């Protein structure tokens, strides 16, 4: 291929397998997720999504100082540290009714924006790309044709055949040396080519090079976050009442942050989005696979922390894919079900009344089968994440989002119904990233403007009440996150976390309605049951994070004795 599209677009091949199919664990995600499916004649007809890790954070928090909650919640997850710190801070802000200064809001937004850029880049290139891109096939590509293809996608690209040749050599050597680490368990590996991968070799090579370039870029995104976050990797600048990173107000620190951000933003514009569109144009059949019905987004990037409607991406719910009628969120209508989870009882409860009382049955149990609870809004399972955020913003006519969505739909020559799919979910993550990237400099300018005008206020003093309750809503890169606190005698009486992954990946509810990822997987084609990349495409498109944070090095090689020193 030389930049032109193939005559007849290939599609996911049909399989003939019937029987059970278990993916456990699903790799390249944070934590253990198990997908237990029944396949009939090459299609999924029944499926359960099961989280294998119990999180009992609520129990640890009881009786502690509310201000300390963020230091524990941000350890719950190995990746999304800041979003938990922010949700915990916002819920206490809300409970003690403190009004934070506007610079503090901007500062919180900038760090969140950096997190979006970092996480979405890493998700696309390092956690999701290998579901679409065949690294082994990239070795067969013609470097000159690859350079031509890549440069045709964006005027700011100046890539050379030599660079692509160098990548082939590097990756070839990596595979030959057995250091496959980062590519292990990829379903393109195996003796026979997996027909479910159908990018031309040149597109594969292009994506592999940018996979490596994105590794560099995410380092810069993380560094930008650390400049404002005061401490890397666990940010320590949010406090109830505002933020404490006074150092970041210095012009030279802001300039440093801006320089790094500009580089990352340019990478998003010139590489991430064109690559996403190029890969998507070859996998357009996935615009008809993996969709769900209902969506919830808490919205993000407020100008006034106390007015939900000032968020740059608006909060809202969409039912039955109806983009004409986005609905406002009434927090009283959120409940968590446990009827099919490994907890005592079967009563659905509002998070303020939430209890966490584990009761494990077994892995084989089809009735109670997950450590996740099942959140529902008005009794409906709702997908959350970038697709939900983009759909709500689009439905509400948010111009930057409408423009980006329109551009993507036109490029791929599909209509808005294509958004309700695995491809739409992956595209929406790019759209959310692009729209956020384009906004970063607006926030940076607002902050430096305030500082120049002499406003350096970052913190509002407040007093701990004897009794109070509060909620902190965050639209994290992975979706709707809320922390709910009840304070009694100045201490934490109850603390519940409703995390994005439980919205999207939780099990069935009391009414037997499927969780979003379960709904999305129904009907998914399976070509090779030994390498079911189709399941991974949809599961990974949700950017699952099971928030385990368990990290133990396993050195059981049969030679352990030689490592032991004492």
């Amino acid at each position, binding site marked *: 291929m030389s930049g032109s599209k193939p005559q007849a677009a290939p599609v996911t091949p049909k399989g003939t397998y019937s029987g059970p199919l278990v993916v456990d*664990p699903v*790799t*390249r*995600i*944070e*934590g*253990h997720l198990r997908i237990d499916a029944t396949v009939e004649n090459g299609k999924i007809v029944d499926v359960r999504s099961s989280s294998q*890790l119990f*999180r*009992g*954070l609520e*129990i*640890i928090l009881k009786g502690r100082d509310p201000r300390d909650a963020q230091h*524990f919640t941000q*350890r*719950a997850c*190995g*990746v999304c*540290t800041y979003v938990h710190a922010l949700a915990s801070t916002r819920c206490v802000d809300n409970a003690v009714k403190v009004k934070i200064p506007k610079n503090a809001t901007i500062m919180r937004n900038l760090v969140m924006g950096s997190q979006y850029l*970092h996480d979405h880049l*890493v998700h696309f290139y*390092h*956690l999701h790309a290998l579901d679409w891109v065949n690294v082994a096939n990239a070795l067969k590509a013609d470097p000159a044709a690859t350079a031509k293809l890549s440069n045709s996608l964006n005027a700011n690209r100046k890539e050379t055949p030599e660079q692509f040749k160098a990548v082939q050599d*590097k990756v070839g050597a*990596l595979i030959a040396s057995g*250091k496959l*680490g*980062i590519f*292990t*368990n990829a379903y393109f590996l195996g003796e026979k080519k997996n027909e479910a991968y159908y990018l031309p070799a040149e597109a594969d090579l292009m994506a592999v090079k940018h996979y*490596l370039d994105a*590794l*560099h870029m*995410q*380092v810069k995104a*993380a*560094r930008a976050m*650390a400049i404002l976050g005061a401490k*890397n*990797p*666990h940010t320590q600048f949010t406090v109830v009442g505002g933020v404490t990173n006074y150092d970041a107000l210095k012009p030279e620190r802001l300039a440093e942050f801006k320089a790094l951000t500009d580089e990352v933003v340019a990478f998003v514009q010139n590489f991430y989005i064109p690559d996403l569109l190029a890969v998507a144009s070859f996998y357009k059949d996935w615009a008809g696979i993996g969709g769900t019905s209902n969506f919830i987004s808490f919205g993000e990037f407020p100008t006034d922390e106390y007015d939900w409607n000032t968020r740059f991406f608006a909060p809202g719910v969409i039912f039955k894919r109806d983009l004409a009628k986005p609905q406002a969120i009434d927090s009283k209508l959120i409940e968590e079900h446990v009827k099919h989870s490994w907890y005592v009882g079967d009563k659905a409860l509002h998070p303020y009344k939430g209890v966490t009382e584990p009761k494990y049955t077994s892995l084989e149990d089809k009735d109670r089968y997950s450590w996740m609870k099942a959140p529902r809004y008005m009794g409906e399972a709702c997908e959350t994440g970038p697709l939900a955020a983009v759909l709500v913003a689009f439905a509400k006519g948010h111009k930057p989002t409408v423009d980006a969505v329109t551009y993507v739909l036109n490029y791929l020559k599909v209509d808005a119904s294509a958004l309700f799919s695995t491809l739409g979910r992956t595209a929406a993550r790019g759209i959310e990233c692009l729209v956020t990237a384009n906004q970063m400099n607006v926030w940076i300018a607002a902050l430096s403007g305030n500082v120049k005008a002499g406003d350096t206020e970052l913190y509002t003093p407040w007093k701990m009440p004897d009794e109070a309750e509060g909620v902190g809503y965050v639209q994290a890169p992975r979706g709707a996150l809320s922390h709910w606190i009840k304070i009694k005698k100045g201490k934490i009486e109850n603390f519940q976390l409703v995390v994005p992954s439980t919205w999207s990946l939780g099990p069935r509810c009391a009414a037997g309605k499927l969780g979003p990822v379960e709904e999305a997987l129904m009907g998914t084609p399976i070509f090779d049951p030994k390498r079911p990349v189709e399941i991974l495409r949809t599961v990974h498109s949700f950017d699952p994070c099971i928030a*385990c*944070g*368990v*990290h*133990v*090095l*396993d*050195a*059981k*090689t049969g*030679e*352990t*004795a*030689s*490592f*032991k*020193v*004492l």
Partner: protein
Amino acid sequence: MSDSEKRILVLGVGNILFTDEGIGVRAVEEMERAYDFSGNVTLMDGGTLGTRLMDPIMNCDLLIVIDAVLGDGEPGSIYRLTGEDLRKSLAFRDSMHQTDLVDTLIMCEIVGHRPEAVIIGMEPQDFHTMALELSPVAKGRQEALIGFALEEVKKAGGAFARKVQPVA
């Protein structure tokens, strides 16, 4: 610090919410509390992050990781692993992380600079119970664990001294 000095990063990793899962982080906290280090030594609580640790890792010449390690020893056993031992280990596929340490090091290599790495680890007694305190066994062995990490610091040309008044 002079140009010839090795930049040493002591990285405690793990999750403090799960008892001995936090061995590495707790060791680094204790080292920061009780010792002063020369300018070429950086101590860091790495939590459980993978790729986001690449920047500090690539900015050092020697990486000393302190972590819980599952060997075949009794709880409290202390291990010393080097990059090569790690690579040979087959068990990392089941890492619960987005990317584990070995992958992160390979990524550092690809991107440009992979430092020399040594892992000082301890066999955990309990890494499932959600609790902030180390198990009695791990607590009792913490000083020995820190001793081995300090040994590595010294070998690589880092200097340290006990604080006259440790931070409370």
